[in-house]
């Protein structure tokens, strides 16, 4: 067991964790942040994407102990309670959500992209979410949702 301080969605948490615990497991099991999904647990589906220090990251591939002192943003922190981030609004409006299991992951990838590049091309959007597998939508509506926010 290791005692760490984890900074998640602007709040700091003192936690006792096992050294081999992934950030994904700690977010879900210890902090009850179930919005970050586990689709493969091996870095290949993107459902667990969060933002760490501004960069998109696969939380199933990072040990929680490594996240000490870093700023972690999860889907729950994307917008203040009761509000929606423009990307979330746009996802609903563009029919970009079917089963929704991939949704938090690609929203975080999109947020990181737009923070970095506020006016991406469709190609750049596709590249940014290429690590986020979606079996339901065929991606088109996801891309449209992201591009619509970029245009605003």
């Amino acid at each position, binding site marked *: 067991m290791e005692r760490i301080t984890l900074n998640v969605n602007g709040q700091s948490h003192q936690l006792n964790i096992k050294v081999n615990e992934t950030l994904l497991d700690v977010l879900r099991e210890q902090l009850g942040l179930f919005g970050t999904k586990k*689709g493969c647990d091996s870095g*290949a*589906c993107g*459902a667990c994407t969060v933002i760490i220090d501004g960069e998109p990251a696969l939380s199933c591939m990072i040990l929680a102990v490594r996240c000490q002192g870093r700023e972690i943003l999860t889907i729950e922190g994307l917008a203040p309670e009761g509000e*929606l981030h423009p990307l*979330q609004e746009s996802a609903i409006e563009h*029919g970009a959500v079917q*089963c*929704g299991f991939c949704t938090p992951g690609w929203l975080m990838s999109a947020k990181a992209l737009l923070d970095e590049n506020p006016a991406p091309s469709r190609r750049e959007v596709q590249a940014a979410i290429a690590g986020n597998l979606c079996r339901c939508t065929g*991606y088109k509506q996801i891309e449209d949702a992201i591009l619509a926010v970029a245009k605003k």
Partner: protein
Amino acid sequence: MNSNQSFITVGKSPLRADARDKVRGKGIYIDDMRLPGMLYGKVLRSQYAHARILMIDTSEAERLPGIIGIVTGEELPFIHGESFPDEPLLARGKVRYMGEGVAAVAAVDEETAEKALGLIKVEYEELPALFDPVAAAAPGAVRIHEEMESYKGKPLVRPVKGTNILNHVQFERGDVNQGFAQADHIFEDTFTTPAQQHCSIEPHGSICLIDKDDNISLWTNNDSPYRCRIEIADALHIPMTKVRIISAPYTGGNFGGKGGLKAEACAIALAWKIRNVPIKVLYTREEEFCSSIIRHPSVIKIKTGVKNGGTILAREVTTYWATGAYAEKGPTVSRFGGISSAGPYNIPNVKINGYLVYTNTPVAGAMRGYSGPQTSWAYESQMDIIAAKLGLDPLELRLRHVYQDGDIHTATGQIIHAEGLKKCLEEVAVRMEWQGKTLGPNQGRGIACMERAVKTPFGSAAFVKVNEDGTVDILSSTTEVGQGSETILRQIVAEELGVPLNAVRKATPDTAYTPYDASTTSSRSTFHMGNAVKIAAADARQQILQLAGKLLSTDPVNLTLADGKVLDKENPVKVMPIAAVLGQSYGSSGTVLGRGYYFPEMPEGQETYFSSQVVFWLLGAHGIEVEVNRRTGEVKILKVYAAHDAGKAIHPDNVKGQILGGISMGLGYAAYENYEFKEGNVLNPSFLSYKLPTAVDMPGVVPVIVEQEHQDGPYGAKGVGETTNVPLPPALANAIYNAVGIRIKSLPITPDKVLAAMQERGEGESQ
């Protein structure tokens, strides 16, 4: 019919209410559920494709701190299955595929359970194994189920004694031999299709709690709670009222994969032994690939007799379906496949043989398209072979033969109606400028279409409960797996009751409270459950008007509902909000609970492929433009045009979403997803090596909704989502042929295969 009627919400595309939860990470899926005292289960899986289990020693694992219990198949004398029960909860006596569950462990956490698996010792005696369905079907082949003759399948399942064939689908209409004799050209081709995994991004999961009186509560992401309930009750020999299935609020993708007992079986196995405590089993991605369910690999031999001018006289199709180690939905897949093996075409003489064969491979069952991807791969590829040989336009050849309203379906003998396939083909042709557009060098275009029967005849029931505040709850056991049924059912109820859409909610299925539904499968929900909720809403409407009549001292026939209010048609000042009517009636003069049941009353089916005729057909056509790199064999898809017949699109954006999603799954099957097996072992059980199409791989898609209204559908609607993947692979193969003149007959179409075919002709880069 309904086309000129104006609707409030039907035919519009209101925003999905579930999306609001899902974008905030507030959608609850099975893995997000926690019950007090919950244990975690893990399953030890077979390393052999076919072997006798000689001994299982769990003693060391049992001593591990944190282990609560271990169960093996020997303790569970139960077999389950939807139409041909043959599968134990955990292997008993022998294992029949690599990845089959042998023992299960419950522990205080997942890590401990995982650790215990490594301490269980199993001794096997390896048996000869069969992987190829044609070899496995041969007389004298090693038996995978020696006891098959003792299984009690449904009457429609016809096993062949003494073999590995557990269902033989067979029929002949007309006289194929005579048809072949009269033909000027005979075409004989063999096509093959591989396995495919559903790859729902959410894995299978279940939590099971069983008390000492055998009362079972199962929280699960199963697609069909009532079907699940009966399968469990039958397997365990307990009354079905002891089994309660509670759906997780949301399911993260299904595509047919979450229909049997997968994680359910493992959780039940453990909970049967360890009582009074909830036990959760969640599949890993590797288990998804190796131990859940796959699409049937198939070998399809198709022989067609054609006259000089292109009239098709006779077609004979023989299909071998590799169903893997257990029957699962295989019997129905092969039956649906039998009905449509000859294609959606008027062909006077047809003979079908389908052999569903046990193999020592992962269990195959329901997957989006449900036989359509296999059958259409063969008949649509061969249509273009015929057209090429006879110098005919492939579109023209199809249009001349496709079923239209009033035709008799060759397999089912029924008179066809609401058949929009010709329109689908024509729409695709117009969009892709089939006549007239010239393509560049090494570019080509292809077209393909398909039909598939919807599961018939099965019923759906619903309640529509109107609350004191005028809001409405739909109690229905249709599961929301991503397809959007929740929104469509809400739209129908809002339409019927004249209330705003956001006043209508849909309850999460629970067999203790939500009424019967056969299944959320086969694109049947909009049609069947749509009708059920429509009937229930009409019933609720009458009840509201009755109550309002009393309060307004008016004959209810003078009243109507609109905008959440009761209106007097003759006296516009008499208006009362529904909320006020119910608020004043509840607890005194009455409540409102509408009841609806829909069952398609269809004439009996010809022979017994279905016990009735098919209530509607899933229909669609795709066109594709490609460019082939002659040196590397790489195929670039320039554009996909996809038209599907929705009857009436209740939510057009949702239909488009189903088309776009289907294209990506069809594209995966056609060109990317290469399930690699070696002696029954899955070599690539991960998203790293089993490649799904990503955003950068998707071509431009033009989705087209065709609306050939169905007389019995709600507002004319039929189902649409299940087969939007289906015509893509043959359309792609036909486009490649059109571009460079090579014909690929086995899926997936990889650059290697294209290159090899080019090299055979002396082209392409040699390696």
